[in-house]
């Protein structure tokens, strides 16, 4: 959420665009938070181009600061100390507009941190080469107890095991959520990955997941819906996860290896989960016909990180009929693309995607009128995700007082927002050969998310993780959240450094009420219910919160970490 930086100005080539920029008043806007210096005078030929999407929030009874908090909590992973002021200076609408064009937001701190995770940039084939599975004969020797742990480490070194891949992916995802200035982009990458879920622990998918997110999800997260479907349909990770790589025309016989045939798995989930929705109006026969269209879409050498391959021999060349539309015989690979076009433009898809997005950004039970309007925008813009998001963000439903704090945070959201609230620092992953107890901050946070029952990249069912409170609020999970709050505030998480005391400078340590006010202001921006505040105030007298010094004469010492943990574990902090 770093504000506009003058040095990231753009050379404007088209005079028309320059005129537009000046008209929009963009160049004259002072860069917020520039340390009190006067903004540099706009130079004639270099201005920041105007935003592509204009955002005007609807009228609302929320106070301005509440509106900013709401936006920071919904479009991102919650505010860090100081974010409220920064966005206030920039203007919350301007902040949203910038979030819609993440490529224009500098993200240097994150980029530096991601350098620790080489896996992110590697191809599946390279990952397979560098992090190969153990050889079969070695596995048998491990299991039969013929080898000592030391011998196993030599034959199958921990830093070259396939598990490294997912550890890096998970760490990087946490680093992005915590550090990225492009918060909306990270939220949307998470949303679409979950929508087009693959399970990283299904066979060779572990070598494909990095590329899947990088190539099929991330580039289109704020792009066009159809491109997401096309990219995921072609990707080896999806082809493997939902078995389409195995699906062939029903009468295919491979010499010496027997009959092959149709596999309906991908076709069904494409209809039910990726596009139309379960009530989207398709039949079992449509599932079969779609599966026939995608026959031959397979993977070259799936076990070694190969790419997409169309096998004409495996393809069903006969005509198909999908949702009442005939797909003529002999279409080959194009059959699948024809199906995707049909599905991406289907009114049920517009409605299904609108419903899911409104559930993510507005409330668990999506208001019907809003879903209708958003679905209309989806259809009119041919699935332009940014236009759809703008329709949601500018709706009265989004910014209404009922919507404020109406969502319960998911495990990823609660873990991330708490670190951001305390401005926690993530230590980099240890160098190879470091003792096993040294863990990077990203991995520690990912493990916390997993303990709250949503391990990253490891949702097994194709539905991904649910996005409603009921799924996440239960006794065990709630205890997990409180324990996380304690460990984080007390600086007990390996590789995650927090210092509650930093926020309390200038507050008298002997005045627990003043300390509490400051903590509530830092963590919840003062947005706390009267009853929770009352409970916290009553805690201030308890001997564990306020400790007398040994000689009973020095200043009393307040356990500010525990106080901060109580605030982070409060009902208020579980909501966004």
């Amino acid at each position, binding site marked *: 959420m770093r504000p506009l930086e003058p040095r990231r100005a753009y050379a404007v080539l088209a005079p028309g665009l320059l005129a537009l920029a000046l008209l929009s008043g963009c160049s004259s806007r002072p860069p917020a938070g520039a340390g009190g210096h006067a903004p540099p005078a706009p130079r004639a030929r270099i201005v920041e181009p105007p935003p592509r999407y204009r955002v005007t929030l609807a009228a609302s009874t929320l106070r301005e600061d509440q509106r900013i908090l709401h936006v920071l909590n919904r479009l991102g992973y919650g505010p860090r100390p100081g974010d409220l002021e920064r966005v206030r200076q920039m203007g919350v609408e301007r902040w949203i507009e910038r979030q819609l064009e993440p490529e224009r937001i500098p993200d240097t701190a994150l980029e530096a941190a991601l350098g620790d995770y080489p896996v992110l940039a590697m191809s599946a084939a390279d990952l397979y080469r560098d992090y190969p599975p153990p050889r079969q004969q070695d596995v048998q020797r491990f299991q039969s107890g013929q080898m000592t742990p030391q011998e196993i480490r030599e034959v199958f070194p921990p830093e070259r095991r396939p598990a490294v891949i997912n550890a890096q992916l998970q760490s990087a995802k946490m680093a992005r959520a915590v550090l990225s200035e492009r918060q909306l982009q990270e939220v949307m990458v998470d949303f679409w990955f979950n929508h087009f879920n693959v399970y990283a622990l299904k066979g060779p998918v572990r070598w494909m997941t990095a590329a899947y997110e990088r190539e099929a999800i991330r580039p289109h997260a704020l792009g066009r819906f159809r491109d997401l479907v096309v990219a995921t349909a072609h990707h080896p990770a999806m082809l493997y996860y939902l078995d389409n790589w195995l699906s062939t025309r029903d009468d*295919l016989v491979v010499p010496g290896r027997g009959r092959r045939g149709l*596999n309906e798995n991908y076709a069904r989930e494409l209809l039910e989960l990726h596009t139309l929705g379960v009530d989207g109006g398709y039949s079992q026969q449509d599932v079969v016909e779609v599966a026939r269209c995608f026959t031959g879409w397979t993977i070259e050498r799936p076990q070694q990180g190969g790419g997409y391959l169309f096998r004409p021999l495996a393809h069903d060349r006969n005509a198909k009929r999908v949702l009442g539309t005939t797909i003529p015989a002999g279409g080959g690979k194009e059959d699948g693309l024809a199906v995707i076009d049909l599905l991406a433009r289907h009114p049920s898809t517009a409605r299904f995607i609108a419903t899911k997005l409104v559930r993510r950004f507005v409330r668990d039970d999506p208001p019907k009128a809003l879903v209708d309007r958003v679905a209309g925008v989806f259809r009119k813009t041919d699935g332009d995700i940014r236009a759809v998001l703008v329709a949601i963000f500018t709706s009265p439903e989004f910014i209404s007082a009922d919507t404020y704090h109406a969502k319960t945070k998911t495990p990823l959201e609660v873990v991330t927002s708490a670190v951001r609230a305390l401005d926690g620092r993530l230590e980099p992953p240890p160098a190879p050969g470091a003792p096993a107890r040294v863990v990077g901050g990203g991995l520690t946070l990912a493990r916390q998310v997993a303990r709250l029952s949503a391990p990253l990249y490891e949702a*097994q069912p194709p539905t991904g993780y649910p996005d409603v409170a009921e799924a996440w609020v239960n006794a065990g999970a709630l205890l997990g959240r409180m324990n996380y709050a*304690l460990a984080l505030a007390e600086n007990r998480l390996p590789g995650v450094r927090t210092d509650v005391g930093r926020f309390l400078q200038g507050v008298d340590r002997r005045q627990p009420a003043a300390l509490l006010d400051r903590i509530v202001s830092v963590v919840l921006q003062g947005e706390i*219910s009267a009853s929770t505040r009352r409970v916290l105030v009553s805690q201030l007298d308890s001997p564990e919160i306020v400790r007398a010094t040994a000689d009973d004469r020095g200043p009393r010492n307040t356990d500010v970490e525990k106080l901060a943990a109580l605030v982070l574990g409060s009902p208020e902090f579980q909501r966004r």
Partner: protein
Amino acid sequence: MDPCTRRAFIKGGALSALGIGLDGMPRFLLRAAAAQGTAARRKTLIAVFQRGAVDGLSMVVPHGDPDYYGARGAIAIARPASGQPETTVDLDGFFGLHPALSPLKPLWDARRLAIVHACGSPDITRSHFDAQDYMESGTPGVKSTADGWLARGLQATPRASSCPFRAVAMGPQLPRVLRGAGAVAMGSIAEFDVGGASMTGAVDARRGFESMYEQGVRDLLYGTGKETFEAVKMLKAAAPQRLAPANGAQYPRGRFGDSLKQIAQLIRADVGVEVAFADVGGWDTHAGQGNERGQLANRLGDFAQGLAALERDLGDRMDDVVVLTMSEFGRTVRENGNRGTDHGHATAMLVLGGPVRGGAVYGRWPGLRRDQLFEGRDLAVTTDFRALFAEVALRHLGVGPTAPLFPGFTVKTSGFPGVLV
């Protein structure tokens, strides 16, 4: 005092006498509890959901059906051959168990295991998500149902009480089937506390959280918080994790075995469990399903070893326990192009325990000839899952016959499969 807490209070009292302490529990309550002696044993149902649609035709093999071996090529389970380990374990000359289920054969022989075959939903969906939802809400075809059928059942039992552990689900998320019952979900007994045992000041933090969540009970977050802390206190007193598996029971490694082991601990610690729930995945065998060995066989082996260990561990308590397994649908009769099976219709469900009229396969067998199949491809449903679940709820848990267990479905005792005594 509610009977569910007696034993926990007694144990707490013993601990207090040893000076270990049990925070916040008035002494007079402990004495009162101790005076009442051991509570009468309650009936317990353990529900196990095989998520992902288990292939009922490989789990309980209709080896006597003339069309079974024709429809299934490489994935068929070999005909029973006595003395040969990797063949179907014959039960009654027509049906047999997958060889990986042989740990359950002694239960069949002891008439404590019954099977309901060709069981499933009247709804035709082949979506995992919808079918699981319907099987848990108990309302096939209706998505708007807010609560689960087990939750509704619990509310309609004569012993209805507010024990925190009356309904407990092992796992990170509360399953749909128990929504609306104030059920507790826990990943593990050990992690079910604030702060953990080794942390100083944990009790204090717990009190702080507890008071914060005590405020308003009308909302999901607050309501859950309140139940959570009641449960935490009770579990601390009962300390079920100290109970090692009894009678030499050996649970398989992994999440399913751990879940069953902890369910047994909760039952043996007498914390008042009436319904326990565990789920186990890995049944969606679209490719490389395997036959006597392989992917499905491994899952079934784990499944059977877990159930057998649970039965052994609970010992004579099984007289009051019924274990009911379920899965959202079965799989295609024909093997698909990848030595696997796609989504089908009916499957098989197991019922085991003391009150079970075991040693029999219940339900009408619809046959596997093409014209006998549902939509020409799947095993047809001849027993509506609601008839089976209703029998268990009414006969075992004591749910009243007019309770709204399955809205839109008339519960008739004459329609029960007859699996319980």
